């Protein structure tokens, strides 16, 4: 287990709590409750129960023989988070936070969503635990992800359109923070990634770190040794930190986070925070951001809504500066190629987010020896993206 962050919620220079005073007592309460829950055997039992019986954990670690052969280098494994209930790793976190909400005696939850995967995962646990639920979503995203909007509504959630700013994820987060500031006494905000003010980046990492714990056990069983590389996509960074955390002390395991290169770095239309970003504060945390000289947050672009955000989790910023995790990016086009390759070689249709990780592995694997091992976190399945992919390919459904 990692000992970060410190008591102030800092990962070195990153993290912290840059939020209005109104929210500080709620963050204190959440940190306290989480700490108590973490030590309570009953909480662990309950969490394990839902992860096993409801989410479907442990998820398999699948050896992709045909893809490995095709790329002609390292052996490639996929951690199958796409098989989680609701279709992505997001639910590992929402189950944990919903259990905490119940412990705090709160009856209402709110959330932001971009692609709608986190929104659906929150709507699902709200139904499961009988919580009132409201999800904020930019109007731009609501149009792009109409199916997920309807799914959330079918689950009994109120989806509220956010018409401010760029009408995408960052504005949905701002609006959820405003709701939380207003209704803080009765409402818990289920943030979807390792972002925001302390304790969110720590707590969400912990809930997602089940991915890496399982992976470590599974790869040792399958191969009798640790992998050479772990590769995962990085939006806020919860699926990647969830997989990496269990391996941080294994100095020989290299880790690569893949950001959204959008239309290419030169185009300015991307979400590669580590490629061209700088340090700043957004939505409560100090980290790497895409911003202009005056500190205004820049608009991002990615074919994948889940990677389309101007800031990266503060713990990633910390490991980037320490050179423990390396970061690269894949463009929209490369991700689409990887989407096709994985669909047609393995019958695994990835979400567009992990397709970015696959795109990087297409370059990496051929350079490695056959005795070397890469594990990719297949963080979500592609069902949600079928419309988007059809649009890109110019097919009308």
């Amino acid at each position, binding site marked *: 287990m990692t000992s970060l962050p410190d008591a102030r919620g800092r990962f070195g220079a990153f993290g912290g709590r840059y939020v209005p005073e*109104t929210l500080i007592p709620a963050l204190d309460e959440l940190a306290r409750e989480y700490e108590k829950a973490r030590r309570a055997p009953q909480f662990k039992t309950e969490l394990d129960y839902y992860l096993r019986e409801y989410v479907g954990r442990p998820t398999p670690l699948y050896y992709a023989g045909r893809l490995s052969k095709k790329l002609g280098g390292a052996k490639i494994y996929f951690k199958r988070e796409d098989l989680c209930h609701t279709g992505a790793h997001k639910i590992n976190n929402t189950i944990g936070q919903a259990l905490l909400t119940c412990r705090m005696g709160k009856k209402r939850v709110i959330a932001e969503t971009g692609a709608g995967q986190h929104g659906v995962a929150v709507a699902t646990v709200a139904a499961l635990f009988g919580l009132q639920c409201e999800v904020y979503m930019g109007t731009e995203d609501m149009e792009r992800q109409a199916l997920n909007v309807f799914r959330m509504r079918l689950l009994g959630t109120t989806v509220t359109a956010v018409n401010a700013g760029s009408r995408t994820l960052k504005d949905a987060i701002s609006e959820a923070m405003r709701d939380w500031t207003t209704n803080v006494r009765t409402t818990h905000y289920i943030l979807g990634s390792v972002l925001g003010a302390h304790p969110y980046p720590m707590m969400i990492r912990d809930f997602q770190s089940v991915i890496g714990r399982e992976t470590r056990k599974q790869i040792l069983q399958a191969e009798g040794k640790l992998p050479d590389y772990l590769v995962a996509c990085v939006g806020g960074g919860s699926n990647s930190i969830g997989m990496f955390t269990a391996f941080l002390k294994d100095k020989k395991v290299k880790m690569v986070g893949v950001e959204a290169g959008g239309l290419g770095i030169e185009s300015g239309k991307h979400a590669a925070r580590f490629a061209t970003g700088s340090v700043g*504060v957004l939505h409560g945390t100090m980290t790497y951001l895409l911003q202009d000289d005056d500190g205004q*947050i820049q608009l991002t672009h990615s074919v994948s809504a889940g990677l389309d955000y101007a800031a990266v989790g503060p713990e990633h910023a910390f490991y980037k500066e320490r050179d423990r995790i390396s970061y690269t990016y894949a463009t929209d086009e490369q991700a689409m190629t990887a989407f096709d390759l994985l669909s047609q070689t393995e019958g695994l249709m990835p979400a567009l987010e992990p397709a970015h990780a696959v795109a990087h592995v297409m370059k990496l694997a051929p350079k490695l020896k056959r005795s070397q091992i890469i594990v990719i976190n297949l963080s979500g399945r592609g069902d949600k993206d079928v419309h988007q992919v059809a649009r890109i390919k110019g097919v009308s459904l």
Partner: protein
Amino acid sequence: MSRIQPTFQRLAARGEKALIAYVMAGDPTLEDTETYVQQLAAAGADVIELGVPFSDPIADGPVIQQAAERALRSGTTLKKILATVRSLRTKTQVPLVVMAYYNSIFRYGEAAFCRDAVAAGVDGLIVPDMPPDEAGTIHPLAEAAGLDVIFLLAPTSTARRETAVARLSRGFIYYVSLTGITGAKLTDKADVEKKVREIRGYTKTPVAVGFGIATPDDAREVARIADGVIVGSALVKIIAEGSHAAVTDRLSSFTRSLKSATLPA
């Protein structure tokens, strides 16, 4: 030296409360802001807050969010706002407080901002997303430069946080009247009175109340219980709604009616 404390002292001696007026700098342009600030001061505003537009203002309601969007569209930056303050200082000595989100200050550089702001004639700084816990680096820089960092307290603040803010805040303490964002409706004035009294128990620093004060009647009730009354969204709405000439008249008359609500009965 900051003009804020002497202003509160002068008002207290007359039995008056401070009227603190907020406008978004650069809404719709910085030239307009320069005019509006002089008018607000002439109409009785005792302290003026200049909002710094930010792309992602989490503590603000739609009125101020849209004002920020207008200001950004006209090319407003923190640097240009300080130039406007410099120009204003040849015309008015009204205390000026910059209200900015932390990223604007961080990006400018905390040390450079404290130095440049004071040189331009800024008296105080409010950062709604910088609780005292995150002010460790800027506080000593601001103290050395003579810039008042004004911290906020909220209905949810514990006694421990109230004492910490009471100790750190300079100029005045900004009490946020409600759990919510700017432009929301203030409903529980009894709770505000209780909290303000509590905060006063820890410090002699004046306590000003903001959020949800939209009318002279609101201002009168809050002036009864606090040392200052902060009005923002209601003024920003006037600026948003009219043409330049109409705005200046309404801004002046509305400010006069607010100021009269802060005078001794």
